């Protein structure tokens, strides 16, 4: 009897699997995601460098679990991406509730491709501005840049993208203020992105966004994000941005360079060299920071290890770096971190 049940079950399983395969041969439901965890040791024995992620000192801490679903039916598609954990909640979703909780949404949008060249997207999307992203699988370095930390994370809105060719496309859209699921002062922002790919391996995005930012100001951010795969081993990335919201409001100018060298498909070494200048406003004087980060990426199947050392120099003492006594201000900060990221 038991054997008969097993036989029936096996036959049904095979039959249903075959049926499913036939029905979804073109575009099955995609599920993907990542899990990340890290250890960080700050050489001042207390957390000093305040940019996003890898925040905890001398602790094996959590990043996030990230789960993304995507489905395409004909010309229509949707993406829903949820994240749970510090990296995907309070550290990157500023409209979190009073207890640091949030709706966990990284991406939630629908897309319709009217033609091969023109598509429209509406919903809540990762921002089109900047080089680095929230998901750890999208970055070479585990800690984040000042440009990422101070720029937008997500934009809710509606946008249209027209591809003139494989080498040129243009996106224009209307958005809420930065990083919010719903607008507090209406659809306040207009943004655009021009993508150009002058030669094979080189892609540049020129981005602009004008409207209500995360600091309560109506500002304009202009951003250049570009990467060039010079050879199969050498890649160079660059991010430069300027946020301007008038003389009496917060603003910055920064640039970050990302040279990387791949020793093999599994092992690569990269540097992030960044200069960030915070503009003077009200009674706050201008200040600048220099940061250097050396990271390795070691891949084994779906797992990536990122050992990383980082040195920051804050000549104007604007970042609040402290010596190991916890009392004396210092211009420099340094840390080591080891992150493990599994992507599926």
């Amino acid at each position, binding site marked *: 009897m038991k054997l008969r049940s097993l036989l029936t079950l096996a036959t049904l399983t095979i039959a249903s699997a075959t049926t499913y395969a036939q029905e979804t041969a073109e575009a099955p439901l995609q*599920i993907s995601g990542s899990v990340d965890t890290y250890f960080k040791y700050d050489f001042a024995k207390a957390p000093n460098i305040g940019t996003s992620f890898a925040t905890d000192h001398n602790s094996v801490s959590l990043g996030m679990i990230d789960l993304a679903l995507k489905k395409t039916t004909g010309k229509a598609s949707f993406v829903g991406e949820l994240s749970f954990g510090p990296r995907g909640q309070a550290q990157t979703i500023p409209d979190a509730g009073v207890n640091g909780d949030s709706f966990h949404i990284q991406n939630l949008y629908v897309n319709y491709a009217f033609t091969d060249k023109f598509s429209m997207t509406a919903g809540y999307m990762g921002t089109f501005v900047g080089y680095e992203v929230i998901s750890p699988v999208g970055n070479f370095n585990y800690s984040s840049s000042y440009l990422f930390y101070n720029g937008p994370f997500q934009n809710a809105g509606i946008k249209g993208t027209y591809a003139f060719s494989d080498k040129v496309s243009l996106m224009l859209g209307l958005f809420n203020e930065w990083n919010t699921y719903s607008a507090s002062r209406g659809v306040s922002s207009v943004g655009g992105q021009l993508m150009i790919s002058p030669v094979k*391996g080189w892609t540049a995005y020129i981005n602009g966004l004008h409207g209500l930012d995360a600091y309560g100001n109506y500002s304009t951010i202009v951003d250049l994000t570009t990467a060039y795969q010079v050879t199969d081993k050498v890649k160079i990335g660059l991010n430069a941005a300027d946020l301007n919201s008038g003389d009496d409001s917060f603003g910055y100018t920064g640039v970050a360079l990302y040279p990387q060298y791949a020793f093999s*498909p599994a092992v690569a070494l990269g540097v992030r060299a960044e200069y960030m200048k915070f503009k003077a406003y009200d009674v706050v004087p201008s200040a600048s920071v220099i940061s250097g980060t050396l990271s390795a990426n070691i891949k084994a199947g779906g797992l990536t290890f990122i050992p990383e050392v980082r040195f920051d120099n804050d000549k104007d003492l604007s970042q609040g770096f402290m010596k190991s006594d916890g009392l004396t201000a210092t211009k420099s900060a340094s840390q080591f971190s080891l992150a493990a990221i599994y992507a599926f």
Partner: protein
Amino acid sequence: MAFLYLYIMKFLTLSILLFFTTVGFAQDKPLSNDDRGKLIYYEVVELKDVSQDSLNARAAAFFKKSAKLLKVKSLPVDSMVQASGKMIINKNALVLSRPSGEVLYNFYVETRGGKYRFWLTDFGFIPYQRDRYSNFVPSTTVAIPLERKPGKLNAAEWTGYVKATTREANAFATRFKEAMMNKKIAPPVVKAAPVNPGQKW
């Protein structure tokens, strides 16, 4: 009697499992290595009584139909056509799937009267990574030759890519051979006849 019943059921189960295993794994022709050391899918097909002009016309029709997937690189020289294409390699787990990368390749066809040969080679893998919008996109523009040894860290994944490429190359070859045989494409399913309970039965 019960013993006999159990024996028959066991035999049936094993037979069914063996059948599906055979069907699943016996069809793919493995990729070979050519004189340059490159992986290659190579086949010579005889079609007696079919002229070279007819074969050229059928190949041209195949390229036209596959224009989105295959880009003809050079005009026919003598009787050979070269094209480049790409295959998407998917990672499947039960009912779920996601692209893990794409394999670029070159495709060559040469015809003679009554026969033709074709081969796919220069396979290069480009891994995908998830972008900021949760779409899978190429992580680089420089393809890694599929015959390159990946090292211990990614050996298992690389073997999977080679297997998937073999499967896709076989599927491509099947499609191409059917086109060259000038097989008529299966007509669409006939529209179901309307049901009319009022009619005489």
